[in-house]
């Protein structure tokens, strides 16, 4: 067991390195000289040459990767071309906001998905099942950026109940636990939660239906256990898999919130990425993608470790 956990952690290292390499290559595949990602285009030629030597951009690619990596591991992601500030400084506050949104959305999606999926799996083939499955398909098929716009039309434009943009009053990007901030969180959270809702519903439905078909449920019924007792048994059996799906969804939402953040001008990593793309600010683009991807790798590992620890049925050599 401990051996497996250790091996799993060791195995994550090459993946993380390779992910780093892909992020490093992003600047290389960008059209034009990578030096343009560091110096502004109107810099004089001798300055460009100086910077090229300072950054080691005249060296072969593997050496460059090594240099880049040694900076990244100590948290130096370079400087933004647009603002001149260190990428990490902008990224830190953005990550907090994105995490906040992703946590709320995956939490809401998980709760709704478990309820819908649990009901659908228990009453398989019924009208409830068809309804829940329909909602799940709609949840995974809806372009969520469009759903966000529809939400804004209904709740901001027509009803004027909730704010359409930003994370706080007056465009503040710092989070606070007051009513005004929570009101800003509602629409983006609901919008982003439809994807995990759909996926969790499908998964939980499948798991619950499979468990309900097993003999031990019949045995429990036969010996006269109450419905709530059986329910607990089902939950215990379904929990590890459902939690694993939910954990991965959190990671997908961290990376996938860019579209929803753009719709709601939510000051997170997505908005940062969007403006970086718009201004062709490659260091910001690279840094943000790297951090989000690393977060996803770490989360994958964590989910795997927790699932192995929680579920004694998983015996991995």
């Amino acid at each position, binding site marked *: 067991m401990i051996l497996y956990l250790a091996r799993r952690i060791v195995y994550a290292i090459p993946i993380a390195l390779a992910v780093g390499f892909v992020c490093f290559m*992003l600047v290389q595949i960008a*059209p034009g000289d990578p030096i343009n990602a560091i110096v502004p285009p109107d810099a004089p030629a001798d300055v460009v040459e100086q910077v090229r030597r300072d950054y080691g951009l005249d060296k072969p690619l593997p050496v460059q990767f090594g240099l880049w990596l040694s900076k990244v591991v100590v948290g130096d992601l370079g400087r933004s071309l647009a603002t001149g500030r260190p990428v990490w400084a902008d990224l830190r506050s953005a990550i907090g906001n994105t995490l906040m949104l992703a946590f709320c959305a995956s939490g809401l999606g998980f709760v709704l998905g478990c309820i819908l999926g649990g009901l659908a799996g228990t009453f398989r083939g019924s009208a409830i099942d068809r309804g829940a499955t329909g909602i799940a398909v709609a949840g995974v098929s809806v372009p*969520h950026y*469009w759903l966000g716009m529809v939400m804004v*039309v209904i709740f901001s434009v027509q009803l004027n109940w909730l704010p359409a943009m930003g994370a706080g009053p007056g465009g503040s990007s710092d989070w606070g636990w007051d009513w005004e901030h929570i009101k800003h969180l509602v629409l983006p959270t609901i919008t982003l939660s439809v994807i995990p809702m759909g996926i969790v519903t499908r998964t939980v439905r499948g798991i619950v239906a499979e468990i309900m078909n097993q003999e031990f449920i019949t045995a429990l019924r036969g010996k006269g256990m109450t419905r709530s007792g059986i329910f607990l048994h089902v939950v215990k059996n379904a929990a590890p898999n459902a939690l694993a799906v939910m954990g991965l969804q959190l*990671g997908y939402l961290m990376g996938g919130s860019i*579209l929803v953040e753009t719709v709601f001008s939510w000051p997170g990593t997505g908005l940062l*990425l969007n403006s970086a*793309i718009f201004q062709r600010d490659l260091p910001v*683009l690279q840094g943000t993608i790297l951090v989000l991807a690393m977060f996803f790798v770490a989360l994958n590992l964590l989910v795997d470790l927790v699932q192995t620890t929680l579920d004694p049925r998983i015996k991995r050599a």
Partner: protein
Amino acid sequence: MSTATTPTAAEAELAVQARQAPVRSQGYWAGVFKRLRRDPVTIACAAILLLMLLAIVFAPLLAPHDPYQGSMIRRLRAIGTPNYLLGTDELGRDILTRLLYGGRLSWFMGIVPVAFAFVIGTTLGVTAGFMGGRVNMAIMRVTDVFYAFPSVLLAVAISGALGAGIFNAILSLTLVFVPQIIRVAESVTQGVRSLDFVDAARASGASGFTIVRVHVLGNVLGPIFVYATGLISVCMILSSGLSFLGLGTKPPEPEWGLMLNTLRTAIYVQPWVAVLPGACIFVTSICFNLLSDGLRQAMDVKG
């Protein structure tokens, strides 16, 4: 086996008999179509998709106006305006016309990356699954790396680095879907490889290529195809999403995601006109999803 060698006289006679004999037992595909016919949801989705396809193919005949010709005096008309059935956009262009024309690019960008990924992913995945050993290691470990990115992030990262444009968007989306198809293709192929008829073919001297062509592909293409049809829905959302971010199609080209983006500023003036292109994406995507589910059930593909 018989395809590897010239057919003997007995075999040829059998083939002639088979052609002449009335069909007694149902073939696999006949069963699939029979099951599909009894599935009203799948039929309805297929019908909607077919109608949309016809509408966008014959857009020049159906569209009442020019998709590029705007006018400053009739900007942002409401739905139901005479002559402009679905209103006009922020530059005074007819929405209905642009939705019809826009479907062409949206469908193209939703299907083409999946088709490319299907070809590339199947080739690599079947190779990895059939060859095993080091080849498998090499292909699957690279796949793992791309799997370590959430798909939206990977698409945005590659498109963002390469810059806007249809070609770059298709390239990045293909890269997003290739690893997913490789994984499915590899696991299905491994399942088939261990079956007895593959051993029998090998024992009778068939080469690896022949075994793959004759015995493996026929058994793995179905499941991979079903999986790929499910990806079209995702691809359509992603490609429109890239256009929505300004990474796919460039204006003034009509495309649903880009229309959604440019109409976003009109959300306080004509909110229901502004959300129309997204509704088109939604309907297409949900129909492809349900169609894929229906196919999966009718073809009895597991997973």
